[in-house]
């Protein structure tokens, strides 16, 4: 039964990071491949062949090392500039198929296909898949349904289908398919809710769809009942074609090795501030609050474990790197304790707002402010033109010995002249 005329497609790239790595390395086409998170910590993308070997998503690398060595699994560190560029290409290609599109993540987008006739939906979806594959080299799966939650569910099933497309709008087997989806794989159902549902005998998407709405409303929150309504075909979550501006911006990294000295932490915090400040300036935002945090490895036992954070309320809204760094370093100094082996540090800029509501502080020297704004613009322009960190602040350090481990990184960047992919002449 249909309660609305919406037709929403969720297009999801298959093993996206692995597919990006494969694009310029045909030799790993049919081989098991994995991509590791920053610092080569955990598995964050797996090819079908790697999944078949039993490598789980999110598993720490040291736990799968044996499988990797025994089966010659090709392993990559993240190469986000490559993935980002390929993602932009995929999204640009998708945009042609529907002007109403919501980019949901680096490798997923919702498309509004309401103007496509029901009988043409499948054909249309095949065309989308074929075009994305030909233009960008990235394989995708497509789920089509009348709500976002259902299209997510359709996509989940499409991943397992050879055709790569599942259309629930023309399907009479929707309930049958929903009962194949475990409750924890339903969009919007998190860990806590999963536990609660299973305790109450709700094990599949179909179970949730059939449960009485009053019960859900009484026992969960508004999001719980939204999910159930969406599974029934009532749209509760609308497509958001306009990218919402972020409300906070976090940059943090684990160190390549443990760090003890305050000077090195200073370098890391400065680098993170520079990155975050550049991001918010790009979005024309300003920040009012900074949080600085440090911690040792959570696996440290007893007295050797330490974690702390400090919030700083800024006197005026700003996106000036120098001012932000100054404040962040004062905060860092106040929480730094000698003698610990730090594993991770980061900063969070919060309560971000558009910079046009930037108000001049009564006490600030206007001239100085304008000079600073120009300086920031000059830094941003230089770095866009000549590559990141061409122009930095000396405090960020030059050697950055603490920087992340990237042992298996592919040195390809399709958006940077110095790291273009290569081709041979045979």
């Amino acid at each position, binding site marked *: 039964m249909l309660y609305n005329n919406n037709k929403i497609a969720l297009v999801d790239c298959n093993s996206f990071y692995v597919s990006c790595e494969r694009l310029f390395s045909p030799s790993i*086409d049919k081989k098991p491949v994995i991509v590791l998170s920053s610092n080569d910590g955990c598995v964050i993308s797996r090819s079908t062949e790697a999944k078949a070997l039993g490598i789980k998503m999110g598993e720490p690398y040291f736990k799968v090392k044996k499988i990797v060595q025994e089966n010659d699994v090709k392993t990559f560190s993240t190469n986000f500039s490559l993935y980002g560029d390929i993602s932009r290409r995929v999204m640009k*290609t998708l945009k042609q198929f529907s002007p109403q599109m919501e980019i949901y993540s680096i490798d997923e987008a919702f498309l509004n296909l309401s103007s496509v006739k029901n009988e043409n939906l499948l054909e249309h979806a095949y065309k989308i898949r074929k075009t994305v594959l*030909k*233009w*960008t080299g990235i394989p995708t799966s497509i789920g089509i349904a009348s709500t976002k939650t259902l299209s997510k569910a359709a996509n989940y099933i499409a991943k397992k289908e050879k055709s790569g497309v599942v259309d629930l709008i023309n399907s009479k087997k929707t309930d049958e398919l929903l009962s194949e989806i475990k409750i924890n794989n339903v969009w919007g159902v998190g860990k806590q809710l999963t536990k609660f549902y299973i305790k109450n005998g709700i094990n599949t998407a179909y179970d949730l769809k059939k449960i009485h709405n009053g019960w859900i409303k009484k026992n969960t929150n508004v999001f719980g009942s939204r999910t159930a309504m969406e599974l029934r075909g009532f749209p509760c979550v609308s497509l958001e074609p306009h990218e919402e501006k972020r409300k906070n911006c976090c940059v943090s990294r684990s160190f390549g090795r443990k760090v003890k000295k305050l000077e090195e932490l200073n370098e890391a915090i400065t680098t993170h501030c520079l990155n975050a400040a550049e991001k918010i300036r790009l979005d024309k935002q300003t920040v009012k609050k900074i949080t600085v945090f440090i911690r040792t490895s959570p696996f440290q036992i007893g007295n050797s474990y330490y974690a702390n954070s400090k919030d700083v309320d800024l006197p005026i809204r700003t996106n000036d790197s120098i001012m932000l760094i100054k404040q962040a370093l004062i905060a860092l100094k106040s929480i730094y304790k000698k003698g610990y082996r730090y594993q991770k540090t980061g900063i969070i800029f919060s309560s971000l707002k558009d910079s046009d509501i930037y108000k001049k502080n009564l006490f600030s020297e206007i001239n100085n402010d304008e000079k600073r704004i120009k300086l920031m613009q000059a830094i941003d322009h230089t770095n866009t033109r000549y590559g990141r960190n061409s122009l930095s602040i000396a405090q960020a350090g030059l050697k950055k010995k603490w920087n992340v481990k990237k042992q298996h990184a592919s040195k390809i960047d*399709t958006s940077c002249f110095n790291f273009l992919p*290569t081709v*041979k002449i*045979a």
Partner: protein
Amino acid sequence: MKLLLPFHLQKVGAGFPSPATDYVEDDIDLNAHLIKNIPSTFLIRVQGKSMNKVGIHNDDILVVDRSLNPKNCSTVVANVNEELVVKTFVKEKNQSFLTSGSKEIKDKINLAENPEIVIWGVVTYVIHAL
């Protein structure tokens, strides 16, 4: 406060007005000319030997469009023996081949007989430093 003055391309002066003012356009944007389809076009650097007959040399940059289908004598990037290589695409009597430069060369690869070979993209321009 800054006072913004309207900007005139042509000086208000006594002399003869420039006859070019009506024809002034933006600077040339090479991207717009060399890249027809942005999401499907990649820049790829040539490594190793040269393909003199086609005019491709070591270290040149190829503009490769994945969205195009090769025509007879197109220069293409193809996946041959698990490697990306530059080849010439040749069509003869309904059969397609890949060759290493010119039609005469004997090392023709028949695409119908080698289904594992995939055309990766079509080379549209070569950027060569002199």
